[in-house]
């Protein structure tokens, strides 16, 4: 049986609604008709999640034809991008902005440029230049301290 995107989305939204209900049940201030308290806003969201999620799920059961979101290669690209950003943040934490940023920019521009004609020298100039621009704009001009890692 083919599971549609809408069915998955609907199920996830319903699950989120149930999770929110469970979470708000631990709030100390009770919900009253005369004063709804802190449960009101997330409670409203939870009700919305359950109703809308169920509706989206049922629509998914009715309508089985849908466009492909991403092909297999696209999914790999998406996951690698997320992992690359996480790695960049981690490297910035330990080695600082000045090492992490040019390396990340060079690696990402090389990967993104796949299929285009680019020279490594251009990408190196771009990576170093962009790092310098960010440093000048944020730290020198606007006074923000960028992460220095172990060099800080």
């Amino acid at each position, binding site marked *: 049986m083919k599971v549609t995107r809408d069915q998955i989305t609907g199920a996830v939204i319903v699950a989120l609604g149930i999770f929110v209900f469970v979470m708000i049940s631990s709030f100390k201030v009770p919900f009253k008709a005369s004063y709804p308290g802190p449960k009101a806003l997330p409670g409203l969201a939870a009700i919305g999640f359950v109703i809308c999620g169920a509706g989206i799920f049922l629509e998914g059961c009715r309508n089985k034809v849908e466009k492909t979101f991403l092909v297999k290669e696209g999914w790999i690209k998406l996951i690698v991008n997320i992992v690359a950003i996480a790695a960049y943040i981690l490297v910035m934490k330990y080695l600082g902005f000045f090492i992490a940023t040019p390396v990340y920019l060079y690696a*990402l521009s090389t990967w993104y440029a796949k299929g285009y004609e680019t020279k490594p020298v251009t990408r190196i100039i771009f990576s170093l230049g962009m790092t310098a621009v960010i440093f000048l704009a944020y730290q020198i001009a606007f006074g923000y301290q960028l992460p220095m890692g172990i060099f800080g």
Partner: protein
Amino acid sequence: MLENAAFIIAQITNPLNLLLLLVGNVIGIVFGAIPGLNGTMAVMLFMPLTYGMSTGPAIVFLLSLWIGGCSGGFIGSVLLGIPGSPSSVATCFDGHPMAKKGQAGRALAIGMTASFIGTFFSAVVGAILAQTVANIAFAIGPWEYFGLCFMAITMVLAISKGNMLKGLSSACLGLLLASVGYSPIDAQARFTFDNMYLMGGLGMTVVLIGIFGVSMMIIAHAKGFDPLPTVDTNMIKGIGIKFSDIRENIVNIIRSFLIGLGIGFLPGMGSGLSNLVAYSMAKNNSKHPEAFGTGNPEGVWASECSNNASIGGAMIPMAALGIPGDSCTALLIGALTIHGLEMGPMVFRNSGDIVYLMFVVVAICAAVCFVLQAIGMRVFPQILKVPYHYMYPALIVVSLISAYVDSSSLYKCGMMLFFAVIGCIMAYGGLPQSPLILAFILGPTMESNMLKAFQNTETVATFFTRPISCVFNVIAICCVFSPVIKMVFARVVKKEDKKVDTAA
């Protein structure tokens, strides 16, 4: 105002003030254009510089930063599809598709013209009506604020591109994210998981750029880049648009201006809301609503005119009541207090010259921004000539650094990545982003006003017994059930048609 004319003329012809006005506008435009930075941040950053200045130059500099930041927001939205601030979110919907179609110059020209019209005329209206209109605001209570927020969230579902359930889910997610942190009034910790970074709630920069910006770039790469549009700047004649463009959109402009002015006037609301409401109204009243989201200039006119009209509107309660219209006016009230100016009803009697100077400076800033953008307009489209394999990595890094500088913590970068993943999941499920953002921005205002209303009357009935509140809430409920109402009407019409056919 006329009795203050000599003081105002002396201030605006002072060479130092003129220089500060020019510099402030340029910095503001740059801050407005760069994603993650905005006019509020510019004001915040440069405010300490003004402490050593006298009141006149300080006001000129701070206001020029604010106006430049508000006006420049459309540049990033049009050219990059990433809003520089919440006030230019709706500009992305049609401004960026226009740029993709090779009409970047036209979109920019519309943006700067609409910004000028919105700012200039709202300052004029503000100066004329400040004292009178402020009195009306005393009649508006938390019931009306709640109704307005509720209506704004449900109205934006009209731009959910057809699927109300997905739009509502997105709005609910926005409300959930808005409820993270300590609740108003009761100080109940919600969804904080004992994490100190979540106690104060989720930062707008992190959520906005994560869901709107970073996820967009990741998905664009995963799907494969479209060929880059070429922008022929030689095709831009004059300011890129003709006077007839303004004439054709005059109703849309006036409507958006009034929406911006009205929403800007209401305390706590500002350009972040007005641009979405005006866009939604423009779509609903357009002869071609299906063209919205595909590069329709009407969308850019509506968004930019309204968000800039909110400036004049926000200045009215700021000056007359001492109540901030938005986050930036809150900063300005703080800065002016340091300069010995206590904003409120008495300010017109005690420092009327300074108050009217503020409105005049805003009007002049609008004109200066227009000229600066007209000169720089041919330079802005050059950004589109930067290949995606350079532009997107650079933008991802700038977005992450923006998150970092928000609180000098890499934890915020991690949070931005989390919201980028949420943005990707939303794209997979086909959930629209704008209801989430609107609900996230309005959630806290809506909740605190709802709780205040219940504290006052302890019943839900008051939301419907107060006339203005009732109107807002009824409109909101109608918006939620509009697909059902439409469906019922369609069935009735179909049945009638069948009867006529059978009879024939």
